[in-house]
């Protein structure tokens, strides 16, 4: 695979696999299209007929109720038929390979595959093998990318802050394991955000993370100083078992977002979280429910963004 597999010969979005590799115009086009869909989600008849007759298959190899539900809602609002397949990891060991699973579904007239997989790169492999009229949307692959989440984060930032070119954005927490962080960082740098910071202990920051275009901070107070946007990442309990962290308590003390630490950011800073939140681990309840938090609007925007992505890819040939 030499050329960018997401774009067709005309530079249109055929699949959405990662934010990395999307030209700026395509990225902005998705955000603009999402804005049109926000209107739809706000009126009484929340449906448009654009994907009527098309089938969207949610292929979730990693369980997830939230993301799957938002994709399902988005597809139904586009009048598409939605089929959910929760393929637990164990059924893969029953022998059917990833590509065989996809080939079987393809035989059932699929138009869009929304794929979540534990292995980085799985959606790229699928995209290499689908038919010309089939489209792949990456709903999260391993640690690599979660492009629709990155897009809805970008949409949220644009909604509240308008101009990326003046912003300082801080991403806090387990960047090492976070596909959300990687997607957001690529999006921010593509849209010329001048200062993107990652804040976390060394054990949770990947090797050579600066090469993504970010400034590294291990001191959260220093990292939050003057930030316009604070994005908190989820900390999974497995990290304590993997010798990456001693305890949730110590993590919260140094890297949890409290009102006191948030006060170091700009007075009009917004606080984001991809969800689901671990209250008291990465974020204090007072902040999560406070005036700076835009965590709930993120969810609404997420539906419009996914509607935009689905209607853009399903329309390319």
């Amino acid at each position: 695979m030499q050329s960018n597999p997401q774009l067709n010969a005309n530079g249109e979005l055929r699949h959405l696999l990662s934010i990395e590799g999307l030209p700026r115009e395509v990225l902005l086009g998705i955000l603009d299209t999402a804005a049109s869909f926000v209107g739809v989600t706000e009126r009484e008849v929340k449906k448009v007929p654009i994907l009527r007759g098309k089938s969207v298959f949610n292929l979730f190899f990693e369980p997830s109720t939230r993301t799957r539900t938002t994709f399902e809602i988005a597809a139904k609002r586009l009048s598409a038929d939605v089929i959910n397949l929760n393929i637990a990891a164990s059924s893969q060991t029953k022998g059917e390979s990833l590509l065989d699973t996809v080939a079987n579904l393809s035989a059932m007239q699929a138009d869009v595959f929304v794929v979540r997989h534990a292995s980085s790169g799985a959606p790229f492999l699928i995209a290499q093998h689908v038919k010309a009229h089939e489209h792949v949307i990456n709903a999260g692959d391993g640690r690599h990318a979660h492009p629709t989440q990155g897009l809805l984060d970008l949409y949220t930032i644009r909604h509240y802050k308008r101009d990326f070119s003046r912003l300082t954005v801080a991403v806090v927490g387990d960047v090492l394991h976070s596909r959300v962080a990687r997607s957001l960082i690529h999006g921010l740098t593509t849209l010329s955000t001048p200062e993107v910071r990652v804040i976390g202990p060394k054990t949770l920051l990947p090797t050579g993370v600066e090469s993504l275009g970010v400034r590294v901070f291990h001191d959260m107070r220093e990292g939050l100083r003057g930030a316009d946007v604070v994005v908190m990442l989820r900390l999974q309990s497995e990290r304590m078992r993997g010798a990456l962290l001693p305890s949730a308590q110590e993590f919260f003390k140094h890297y949890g977002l409290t009102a006191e630490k948030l006060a170091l950011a700009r007075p009009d800073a917004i606080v984001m979280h991809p969800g689901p939140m671990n209250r008291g681990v990465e974020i204090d309840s007072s902040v999560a429910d406070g005036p700076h938090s835009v965590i709930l609007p993120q969810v609404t925007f997420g539906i419009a963004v996914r509607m935009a992505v689905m209607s853009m890819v399903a329309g390319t040939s």
Partner: protein
Amino acid sequence: MKILIRNGRVVDPASGRDAVGDVAIADGRICESLAGEPERVIDARGLVVAPGLIDLSARLREPGFEYKATLESEMDAAVAGGVTSLACPPDTDPPLDEPGLVDMLRRRAKALSRARVYPVGALTVQLAGERLTEMAELAEAGCVAFSQANAPLSDTQVLWRALQYAATFGFPVWLRAEDYCLARGGVAHDGEVATRLGLPGIPAFAETIALGALLELVRASGARLHVCRLSSAGAVQLMRAAKAEGLPVSCDVGAHYVHLSDMDLGYFDSHCRLTPPLRSQRDREALSAGLADGTIDCMCSDHTPVDEDQKQLPFSEAEPGATGLELLLPLALKWGALRNLPLAKTMARITSDPARILGVQSGRLAPGAPADVVVFDPQASVRIGAGMLRSQGKNTPFLGYELEGRVRYTLVAGKPVYESA
């Protein structure tokens, strides 16, 4: 049979010869000249005549993995690639930890009358890293050295004992340097590319930490150590110092590693899923330079046929390995050309140098030496593809590439075993 190979550019790294001339073969050996008329004349005008290639690592997949490849197909591949001698690692199924298995493998290979096969025996029983194998018995059955292949040996005490025991008999030990715990779970070089792609990484110091430990154990035990498949700049530095110190050590590099780096992973290309992983461009450069200055003794193919199903998987799930027997020559020539080396020096790295490590008489064109010869066209190019590969392993990052160096004749013990137009 009396054969005369005429008017070729004869390149014999061991003697330094590089000139147009003839090579005479009789009774399976190179000779000064032929008494009487040759039964066969090979016209080698415009071609290079060199010792047959010696590959220190080629997996033949037998016994146990016949669905991946068979002795027949892989031996065909070997001679098609100009390889006349190869050493095969012990990670068959069952592993080569019993004299009976080694014996059977040698007989099967000999019966096929293609390349010479030198089995490398398992260092520990079942390669499990706990109990020593009967090395003396295995050596008698034909093992030329002892190895763990890619299986870990994390109990350093067992490692020390194994080296001491091997040193007792003077058996060489061939080991890949990798700290099992640091490499655990990793599938790619721990660097910027793995960070971007979200792949768990294996840091370069997983190799250097293990190599440092190995070298200490060599000092303590006196064992002869050959380090397999160097992958990092740090390892090259350690080997340079170890050789300067006079330790009985040698090492090799896989042909892919002087050409590719982690940048070649591209969009998760599982053909680049290899063990050890492809590291950074800086590491690649150090490996290439190390091979040129002799710190790294030789290049091998590390031929590992993997069936396509095991490659058509997400990167971290795909089976590591690449086919290599038929690419060793062109990849070596390409490396030599990029570094502007004289042909004799390039060829040394795949003939006389591995011969020295293997301890065999082949790898040179001196009179009396076994007549293992390759005749190839250095200018003719080959397009790498599933169709032209005789190996059952069609898995290579070089699919679709045009590489120069086409084998025309391969002779083993004075008998032509491969010919092509």
